[in-house]
């Protein structure tokens, strides 16, 4: 049976597995073949867990043979960004400092997938310690956009986005701290969902910025995202910031449609410097939403222009503290031949961390340092309150906000590496959402003249994932963008 993973959704595959049209092992082999074919070009994976995945698929098949599927995820090959700790499977955070680190425990999100029978096919590439917007900061080399190999897939969860877009697996998990799920989803033409802060447990993901990080799925379509979110969401006693709220049956709530839904369009998100095709695609999408029953109004997020500054002080400050544990004493890379303790610290970290990580650690340390706290970190925390209030006000009048996910489509590899600040600015449309802790999703809404995907971002109220998903679903069902697949032989460097 010739299974083509790039033609399957998770939900579709689940039906076929139950109907025994193919086995989980066949599905896995098809994914592994696809990986073998495309990895030399795409470099989406850092670790492919062939043997382990085969065992899991075989066990899933035994269950299917007995008619005892564990869930809709049973037997489905799913990839994990390499910041998810997986017991017994190397987890590097795309850094040299964890090059040979094998975790002794599974994170909660991973454990939930495992207990539902998912086949964990491997660990995907990302920006080192999730710091970046292009996956170019990986210590193991970048990943490549399957729509155009000369371009970035976005970041930091680039590898996961590539894996799904290229049909190497049926879904993947990423993390989103400033846009790291939504941006790669937009650049790669797939669905990327960031839940409300606290909706999904952070226990077991390599921490970048504790008050901003969230776990979320990459999928081919919105239904798959709903299925995965149902599996992932829920209070975790191991995560004191996880919300003690019920997880709705997201999949069953998809059909609510857009009647009486009020959509806000933040005027600050449509600005000069935006790629014209991005703007026009998004405006078309908004018009479509209106025709489907939503009412649309312009809203204002007056502090939008301060979001990046706010983010880069808070995130880097928290990161500078979270990454201080990497000292080579209990795990991870230790510099050989260091004579003193201080040298051990400094050399291990110097050798282990890449330039962007060092830059952010230094910036964060500076923002917290004596004499500078009030001016930088302290001020940023207050600015964050203003950003949150903007959204609170806007979402008092609307159920959702709509905007582009990124001001442009995928840029070329190397284009923004010289100027870190310009790289930071590509997050401008996603970053405020993390500051406010809100749920948001990117769905494909067009392609530009070069055939590069464009993402539409929907932003919801706190714990309003159901509304977000049903709106995105309604949009998707009226369009065909989610059916797009990267060309077999994409254009290379111009």
């Amino acid at each position, binding site marked *: 049976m010739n299974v083509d993973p790039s033609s399957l959704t998770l939900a579709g595959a689940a039906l076929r597995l139950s109907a025994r049209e193919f086995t989980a092992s066949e599905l896995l082999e098809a994914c592994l073949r696809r990986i073998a074919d495309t990895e030399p070009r795409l470099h989406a994976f850092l670790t492919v867990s062939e043997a382990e995945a085969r065992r899991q698929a075989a066990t899933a098949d035994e269950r299917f043979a007995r008619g005892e599927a564990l869930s809709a995820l049973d037997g489905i090959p799913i990839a994990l960004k390499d910041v998810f700790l997986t017991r017994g499977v190397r987890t590097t955070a795309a850094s040299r400092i964890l090059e040979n680190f094998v975790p002794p425990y599974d994170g909660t999100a991973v454990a939930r997938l495992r207990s539902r029978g998912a086949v964990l096919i491997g660990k995907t590439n990302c920006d080192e310690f999730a710091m970046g917007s292009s996956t170019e900061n990986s210590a193991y080399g970048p990943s490549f956009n399957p729509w155009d190999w000369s371009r970035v897939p976005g970041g930091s969860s680039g590898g996961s986005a590539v894996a799904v877009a290229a049909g190497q697996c049926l879904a993947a998990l990423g993390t989103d701290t400033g846009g790291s799920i939504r941006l790669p989803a937009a650049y790669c033409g797939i669905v990327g969902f960031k839940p409300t802060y606290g909706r999904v447990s952070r226990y077991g993901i390599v921490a970048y910025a504790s008050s901003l990080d969230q776990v979320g799925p990459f999928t081919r379509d919105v239904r798959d995202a709903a299925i995965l979110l149902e599996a992932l969401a829920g209070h975790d006693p191991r995560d004191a910031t996880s*919300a003690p709220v019920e997880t709705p049956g997201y999949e069953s709530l998809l059909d609510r449609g857009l009647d009486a839904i009020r959509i806000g369009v933040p005027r600050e998100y449509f600005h000069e410097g935006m790629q014209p095709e991005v703007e026009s695609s998004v405006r078309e999408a908004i018009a479509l939403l209106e025709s489907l029953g939503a009412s649309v109004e312009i809203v204002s997020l007056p502090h939008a222009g301060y979001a990046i500054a706010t983010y880069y*002080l808070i995130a880097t400050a928290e990161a500078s503290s979270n990454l201080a544990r990497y000292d080579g004493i209990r795990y991870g890379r230790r510099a050989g031949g260091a004579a003193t303790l201080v040298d051990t610290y400094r050399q291990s970290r110097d050798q282990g961390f890449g330039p962007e990580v060092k830059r952010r650690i230094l910036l964060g340390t500076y923002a917290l340092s004596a004499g500078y706290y009030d001016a930088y970190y302290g001020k940023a925390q*207050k600015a964050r309150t203003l950003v949150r209030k903007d959204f609170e006000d806007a979402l008092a009048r609307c159920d959702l906000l709509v905007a582009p996910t990124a001001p442009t489509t995928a840029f070329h590899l190397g284009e923004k590496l010289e100027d870190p600040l310009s790289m930071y600015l590509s997050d401008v449309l996603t970053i405020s959402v993390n500051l406010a802790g809100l749920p948001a999703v990117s769905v494909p809404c067009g392609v530009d003249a070069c055939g590069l995907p464009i993402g539409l971002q929907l932003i919801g109220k706190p714990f309003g994932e159901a509304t977000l998903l049903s709106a995105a679903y309604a949009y998707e069902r009226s369009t065909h963008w989610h059916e797009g697949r990267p060309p077999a032989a994409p254009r290379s460097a111009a």
Partner: protein
Amino acid sequence: MAEAAFNTAPGPFGTTEWRVPGEFEEASVLCYLHPMKITREQVRHVAALARLELSPQEEERIAGELEAILGYVDKLNELDVTNVAPTSHVFDVGAAFREDEVRNEPAVDELLENAPDRWQGFFRVPKIIE
């Protein structure tokens, strides 16, 4: 819980003038220099705090980069935040506790396997002279 209300963290935080008796903090070199211009010396100081070792070229480069970034983030000074409470936690998820019970997992051996240098159950580091 339906769509939750926003929570603003009560009270200001981080008045650096306040000290716990017994906490001595050496005055930072950075205090007395203009925040906009970042010197290599400042970079070196911050790198020491973060236990990072930078080459002279790296110091030079990073000084320039930090200066640019800090120049950008200085736009926050346009904001009037006098009566604004800082956000430490976006939502009020209530208190989270653990009951006082002992659990042993995962097995300690597995935990210690990742250590680069062990000796008789301890982690080993270069001699610290106190």
